[in-house]
């Protein structure tokens, strides 16, 4: 560094020192007074359904196959699985739904064709909560809008699980116990012709939950 630069640097550092020295800011010069509110703890709740479970094996309700093999179901066959929604340590109200997804199709159009005929029925405590095409329970894809099914006043009064927004959305209130579901997959007796023979796919079921506030979304 040249002598000129050193000199300039020295002047600069001096200037900075003076600038810091004369600033009253951090010393709270002049008269000042502070008033503080009592502190508030913002504590975030917990939503955790990870201990929910699905039975390992399907039970045969109707038909001859003893294992889950959608490719080997024939019209009229039914398979059933028990699922438990566990609230875990959740300490808040939340909404949840059961989603179904067909994966790993045996042919390029296998999933699309099976989605046309494969049906599901979901029961809990003796009530049928859903009975329709499995495709109605597929996760919402980007660009799709949820199917809206408004809550009836009657159901809201009864504080029973209500169907909201989608075909299979339920509300779990804080303090309620875990919930058991019977999920039945079946092929109808009619409408499944020979063109469906040999089509195979895996059915993946999931519980999804979200906080019960306006605008909340599932992480689909």
């Amino acid at each position, binding site marked *: 560094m040249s002598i000129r630069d050193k000199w300039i640097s020295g002047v*600069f550092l001096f200037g900075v020192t003076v600038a810091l020295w004369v600033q009253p*800011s951090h010393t*709270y010069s002049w*008269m*000042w007074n502070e008033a*503080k509110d009592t502190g508030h703890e*913002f*504590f975030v709740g917990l939503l955790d359904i990870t201990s929910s479970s699905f039975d390992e094996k399907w039970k045969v309700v109707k038909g001859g196959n003893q294992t889950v093999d959608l490719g080997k179901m024939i019209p009229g066959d039914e398979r059933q699985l028990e699922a438990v929604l566990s609230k875990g340590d959740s300490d808040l109200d939340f909404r949840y739904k059961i989603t179904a997804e067909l994966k790993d199709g045996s042919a390029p159009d296998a999933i699309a064709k099976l989605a046309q005929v494969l049906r599901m029925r979901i029961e809990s405590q003796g009530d049928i909560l859903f009975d329709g095409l499995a495709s109605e329970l597929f996760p919402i894809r980007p660009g799709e809008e949820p199917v809206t099914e408004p809550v009836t006043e009657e159901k809201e009064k009864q504080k029973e699980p209500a169907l909201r927004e989608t075909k299979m959305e339920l509300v779990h209130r804080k303090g309620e116990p875990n919930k058991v579901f019977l999920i039945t997959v079946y092929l109808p007796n009619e409408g499944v012709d020979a063109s469906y023979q040999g089509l195979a796919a895996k059915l993946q079921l999931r519980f999804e939950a979200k906080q019960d*506030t306006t605008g909340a*979304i599932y992480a689909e």
Partner: protein
Amino acid sequence: MSSRFEKMKNWPWKRIMIGTAVISSIAASSSFGTYAYFTSQVQETSAFTAGKLEIGLGTTETSFRAEGDEPFLPGVRFEKKLRIENMSDVPVKYALLANKQGGDDIVYDQLMVEVRRGGADGDLLYMGRVSQLTRANVIISELEKEAGDDLHFSVYLPESTGNEVQQKSAEVEFGFLATQIENGEYFAQSGPVMTLTPSDFEEGIMKATERVMKDTVQGTTFILAEGSYSLPNDFTFPAHSTWKAEKGKEGKVVLDAEDLNVKEVSFDGITFSGSGVGLYVDTNVSISNSTFEGYEAAIQTTPGDSEGRKGLTVKDSTFKNVDKGIVLDQEMKAVVIAGNTFENVEHAVSATGEKASEIQIVGNDFTKVSGYAVDSDGVRIGDGITGFKEAADEDGSGEGKLAVHVQQADFYLEANKYK
């Protein structure tokens, strides 16, 4: 007789004369004070007593709470009214303050607060992260003596906040710091204040400036005087520093800068000008009331995977004549993009869905964006196809809202203006 005269003749007449003169003078002096003309006298005794400067909190609600006593979750607003009263002998000005009393940084760093004067719909004094209020950057210029201000505080976690905050907490204490009207602009900064001018960045002085930067304490506020500053792209901003345009010179402080890496830094009222990428942003960067001009990408996440990168706030700023405003192509959580205007911009906000990002986009003006206002991997969000479009509430009330999860990224959009 003659002998008596002789004796008198020998008297010390000179001394007698002087003594008589003095006695006469004393007698004359005393008679003046008593009898000469009419006189009157008034005496003033001034006691210099310092005035009192004192503020207090009026009657307030006991606690922050949400409507319907909802629990504290992302998007749920906890509200409280606070009243500040001036009990001083003089008018005062005051700053809003917030302090972390305890809890987890992951909550505290993401907490947002809106402060309005005169009620929930009153004038907005501040909207931003609670952590920024420790810098006392909101100053209410005058509160008359014996007067009070009713302030409405609304604290929330952004809707885009994810599971990482579950069962975590932050304890926050809000308050006010008042001082005389005459006190300086930066009376309540949390650290030292240093004023810099363009000449401090000129060749020959730059090295000394960088030495100063290296030695500054955390929390220093640098006030930039009007002018154009040329920063080398390897310039290192001191951690936890704030860079502010001098009061009244906002928009007249220009940083000619490209490829600047910034982390744990705040900018306020600065104009960034250049080409290429303006700022590469890492954790905890706050930009407000600033302008970006001429860049290919004004703000972009620092290249390379970096887990835990979080805390980008861009608010009340203007992007002009840039190809891309904000590019989030790496993981970045706790992003808030609010109240910005994009003019002659091709794409305003681009974020990849492949990274686990959380992005809140609220109250921006995208009306002069020629391409996509917000996009994720080329898919339009906010004004895109059904399902990617902000929509009003079912009854048609309220402003447009959209919460969407694209691959791994969470987006929340509200009250933005599109074409």
